[in-house]
C-alpha cells in the first residue's frame, strides 16, 4: 500500500519524473567528469548551506505565479528586511552585551524583518488586487522602491561588522550535523505544503490562478486571497534574506541581484505554469536542488568564470520552456499566415 503511494507520487507526474531524470543525468555526468572534487563531504556540506537562501525566495515567487501573477520584488524586499534587521542588531548589541540581551535583540531584529516582509508583500498584493496594476509593473515598481529605501538607509554602502551573535546563531548545526539554514528551508517547504495542498487557502490560490473571473463569480474573495498570496511571498523573501545575511554576515542594497532570474528559472523549471493555476511543490523543490547541483558542478571548473552561470541559467530557462511547449503540442506553432 505504502509502496503504491510512493510509486504514484513519483510516476504520476511527468514533469516531476523528468526533473528526477535530469537530476540523475547531472549526477552521473559529474561523477564521470569530476568525481574526486564533487563527491566530497566538504562540497556536499557547502552545497547544503548555499541553496536555502534563494530556495526560500523562490517558494515566494512560486505562490505569486500560481495565483496568476509574478513577484519580481522578492530580492528588493529581502534586502530591505535584512538591512533593517542589520541596523537593529548594530544598534542594540553593544560589544559588552550579555547573551540574554543579544538574544532579545536578535528576536526583535528577526521580528522586524518578518514584519517588513509582510507589509512589503501586502503593498504588492494591494497594488495587484485592488488597483488592478499588472503584477509585472507593480512588483517592478516596488522592487525599485524597496531597493531605493535600502540605498537611502545605507547610503549604498555595505553594512558589515554585524554583532557576531547573529552569524553564530545562524551557523548552529542542528543535532550536530544539519546546518540551520537547511532546517529553516525544510520548515518553509513544510509550511508551503500545508498551505498549498492541505488548506482551503491553497485551493483558492489555484482556482484564482486558473480562472480569475470564474473564481470571482463563484464567490471567492479574490482580492483578499491575492493580497494574502503576495504577503506569503513577502514573508518568505524576508526569511530568505535573513538566511543570506547569516551566511554573508553583512547586508547590502544589491546583494542577491541575480536571484530574481534564478527564482523564476526554478519556478518555471519546477513545473509552475507562468500563466498561473498549476504547479507542484515537489517539482519546485527538485528544481532548487538541480540548480544547486549545476551551480556547484560549474564551480568544479576553475577556468569557467562566474558569468558563465548566467549564460547557463538563460539557456536552461529558455530550453525548458521550449521543450515543455513542444511536449504539449508536438511541434512549433504553425499559425504563420
Amino acid at each position, binding site marked *: 500500500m505504502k509502496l503504491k503511494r510512493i510509486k504514484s507520487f513519483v510516476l504520476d507526474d511527468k514533469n516531476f519524473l523528468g526533473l528526477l531524470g535530469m537530476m540523475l543525468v547531472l549526477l552521473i555526468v559529474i561523477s564521470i567528469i569530476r568525481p574526486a572534487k564533487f563527491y566530497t563531504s566538504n562540497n556536499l556540506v557547502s552545497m547544503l548551506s548555499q541553496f536555502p537562501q534563494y530556495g526560500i525566495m523562490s517558494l515566494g515567487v512560486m505562490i505569486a505565479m500560481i495565483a496568476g501573477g509574478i513577484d519580481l520584488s522578492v530580492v528588493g524586499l529581502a534586502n530591505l528586511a535584512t538591512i533593517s534587521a542589520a541596523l537593529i542588531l548594530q544598534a542594540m548589541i553593544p560589544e559588552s552585551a550579555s547573551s540574554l540581551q543579544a538574544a532579545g535583540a536578535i528576536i526583535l531584529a528577526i521580528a522586524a524583518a518578518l514584519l517588513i516582509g509582510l507589509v512589503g508583500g501586502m503593498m504588492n498584493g494591494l497594488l495587484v488586487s485592488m488597483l488592478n496594476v499588472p503584477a509585472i*509593473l507593480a512588483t517592478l*515598481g516596488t522592487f*525599485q522602491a524597496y531597493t531605493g529605501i535600502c*540605498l537611502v538607509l545605507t547610503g549604498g554602502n555595505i553594512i558589515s561588522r554585524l554583532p557576531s551573535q547573529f552569524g553564530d546563531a545562524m551557523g548552529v548545526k542542528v543535532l550536530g550535523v544539519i546546518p540551520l539554514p537547511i532546517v529553516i528551508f525544510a520548515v518553509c517547504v513544510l509550511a508551503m505544503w500545508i498551505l498549498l495542498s492541505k488548506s482551503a487557502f491553497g485551493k483558492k490560490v489555484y482556482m484564482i490562478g486558473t480562472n480569475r473571473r470564474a473564481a470571482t463569480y463563484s464567490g471567492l474573495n479574490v482580492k483578499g486571497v491575492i493580497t494574502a498570496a503576495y504577503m506569503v511571498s513577502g514573508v518568505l523573501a524576508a526569511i530568505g534574506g535573513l538566511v543570506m545575511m547569516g551566511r554573508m554576515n553583512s547586508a547590502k542594497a544589491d546583494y542577491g541581484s541575480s536571484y530574481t532570474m534564478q527564482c523564476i528559472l526554478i519556478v*518555471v523549471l519546477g513545473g509552475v505554469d507562468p500563466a498561473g493555476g498549476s504547479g507542484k511543490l515537489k517539482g519546485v523543490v527538485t528544481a532548487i536542488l538541480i540548480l544547486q547541483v549545476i551551480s556547484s558542478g560549474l564551480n568544479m571548473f576553475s577556468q569557467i568564470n562566474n*558569468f558563465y552561470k548566467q549564460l547557463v541559467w*538563460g539557456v536552461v530557462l529558455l530550453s525548458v520552456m521550449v521543450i515543455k511547449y513542444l511536449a504539449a503540442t508536438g511541434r512549433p506553432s504553425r499559425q504563420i499566415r
Partner: protein
Amino acid sequence: MKRLVKMNETYVFVVLALLCLLVQARSGQFFRVYNLIDLLVALIVPAMFALNTHVVIASGGIDVSFPCIASFCMYVVTRILQMIEYQGSVVLAFVMAAVIGAIMGALNGWLIASFRLPPLIVTLGTQSLFTGVLMGVLEAIEISGSKLPSCITSFGLQRLYETVNPENNIITYIPTSLLILVGAVIVTYVILKHTMFGRSIFAVGNDENAALRAGIPVKRIKIAVYCYAGLVAGVAGIVRMCITKFCHPTNLTGIEMEVIAAVVLGGTSIAGGKGSITGAMLGIALITVMSNSLLLLGIPVQWQTFCTGILIIFGTGLSAYQAMRAGKKLMRRTKIQPAEKPAAEGGQTA
C-alpha cells in the same frame, strides 16, 4: 479642446511642466541653456529605448533584454572595429550594431511567437543569456579613451550647437547623435501610423485572436516587432558610446525599469494596443528630468532609485485605476462583460 483634456499626454505634459517650474523655483538654474542641453543629452539614449519599448508594449509584449542587447552591440562592434583597425565613416558601426541587434531581437521574437511563451520570462532569459555571453565568453571589460575606434570618438565630438557656462567655463554642446534620435522617432512614427505593419502591431496588441481572424500574420508581426526593438536598441548602444566616449559592458543594466515605467506613464497600455509616441517621449522626459534634477532640488542622489520606484507605482496605479473606471463606465453604458477591454479608441491617439 475637449479631446486635449481627455488625453493622457496632456496630464504628463502638465506634470512635466510643473516639475520644471518647481526645479526652477527651488534652484533658479533649470532654464539655463547649459542645464537644458545637459538634459537633452541625457535624454537621447533613454528616448531611443523608450521608442523600442513603446513598439513592443503596443504589440502586447514586454522586453527587458534591450539594455543587454545595446551593451552587447556596443562592445562587439567596438571589438570588431578595433580588430580590423577601421578608419572609415561611423556609418559602418551603426549598420553593424543594427544588424546584430536585429538578430538578437529576432531570437526574442522567435521564442515568443513560435512557442507562445510569456514575453517577460523569455526576455529575462535572453537577458541572462546575452550577459553571460558578453561577460563570460567574450570577457568584456571597459574600453575607453584612445582605445576606442577613431570614428566613434570623432562622431561623438561632432556638435550641432555649443555654449560655454560662464561660471566655470565648461563647454556644453548638443552632439550630432541627437539627429539619430530624431530620425528614429520619425521612422517609428511613420511605421506605426502609416504602414500596414504598424497598424497590425496595434491590432495584435489589442486582441491577438481578432487580429488573426482578420488575416493579420500575427506570428510574423511579433517577430518583426522584437526584431525592430533589437535594431533600435543596438543603434542606441552605439549612440551611447559616442556620447559618453567609453564602452562599459554593464552600466546600462537596470535602465529597463525606468524606460518601461516612462512608457507606461506616457499612456502606453501594458495590455497592448494603446498609446502614442508623443506620450512615450513625454514619459521618458519626465523620468529623465526628475532623476537629473534631484540634486538641483536639494535631494540626495541616494533617493533617486526610490523616487523612480514611487513614480512607477504611482503612474501605473493611476492608469490602471483609470482603465478600471473606464471599463466600469463602458459596462454600464453597453452592458457588456466587464473584462472586455475598452478597445474602440485603441491606438488612435498619436
